[in-house]
């Protein structure tokens, strides 16, 4: 009997960090050396859209290869909602290691092509919470589709 290849294939994680370009992170994150990231593209897109209020909203996309040797811990107190992990790098180190960077606008466009709409303006923590609680999370197949589309944009940080 031949095993179903798709069912047994290991999903290689990809880590997404939505922020504004060049943001060094809060003083606390810089001090403890943690870059919050999500394994879900929608979450990162939401934070990237909010990041547009402070500059160019972007998503830094880091593959497991980009983060080889870096400790990745469980996320924080809202980890379930945000599909969050704690990457043991400062936010700027994460940005430098990420092999793909796309803008919030590009991320939203990719999601639209996948049939998912994210608001074009999100301002403040209350709005973030509302959008996070009212959006779906992607399947591993959809995340791969998103990453392929982002790669095809051929943007470098």
């Amino acid at each position, binding site marked *: 009997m031949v095993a179903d290849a798709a069912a047994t294939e290991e999903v290689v994680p990809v880590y997404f960090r939505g922020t504004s370009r060049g943001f060094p992170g*809060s*003083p*606390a*994150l810089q*001090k*403890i050396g*943690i870059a*919050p990231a999500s394994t879900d593209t929608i979450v990162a897109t939401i934070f990237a859209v909010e990041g547009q209020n402070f500059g160019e909203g972007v998503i830094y996309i880091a593959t497991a290869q980009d983060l080889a040797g870096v400790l990745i*811990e469980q996320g*924080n*107190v*809202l980890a379930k909602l*945000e599909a969050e992990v*704690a990457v043991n790098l400062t936010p700027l180190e994460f940005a430098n290691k990420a092999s793909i960077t796309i803008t919030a606008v590009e991320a939203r466009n990719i999601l639209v092509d996948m049939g998912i709409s994210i608001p074009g303006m999100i301002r*403040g*923590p*209350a709005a*973030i*919470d509302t959008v996070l609680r009212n959006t779906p999370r992607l399947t591993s197949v959809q995340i791969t589709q998103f990453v392929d589309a982002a790669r095809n944009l051929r943007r470098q940080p």
Partner: protein
Amino acid sequence: MKQVFKVSEVVPIGEDTFLVNGRAYEDVKIGDILFAILAETVEPRKMEAPQCFKVIAISTYTRQIEELSRMLTGSLTLQGDQGENLKEETMLVIPVV
């Protein structure tokens, strides 16, 4: 008033001490005095009997810190008498004159 911290979970850790998890809506630091009100009643006229708590410790990603910045998630250790007013969806606020 200024919304400072939205509570997602409350864990009593002593008679008058409580750990609250959630997200900072504004910067919050050790020593701050916060008032607990239900999130859906965030209007000045509803603050007739605000409950007061002092922030005595802060942690994020299991690390102890002095200040939790706006937007970050984390845990506040609060000291105050009216712990029954701390619950999921509670908003911690600072009155603004």
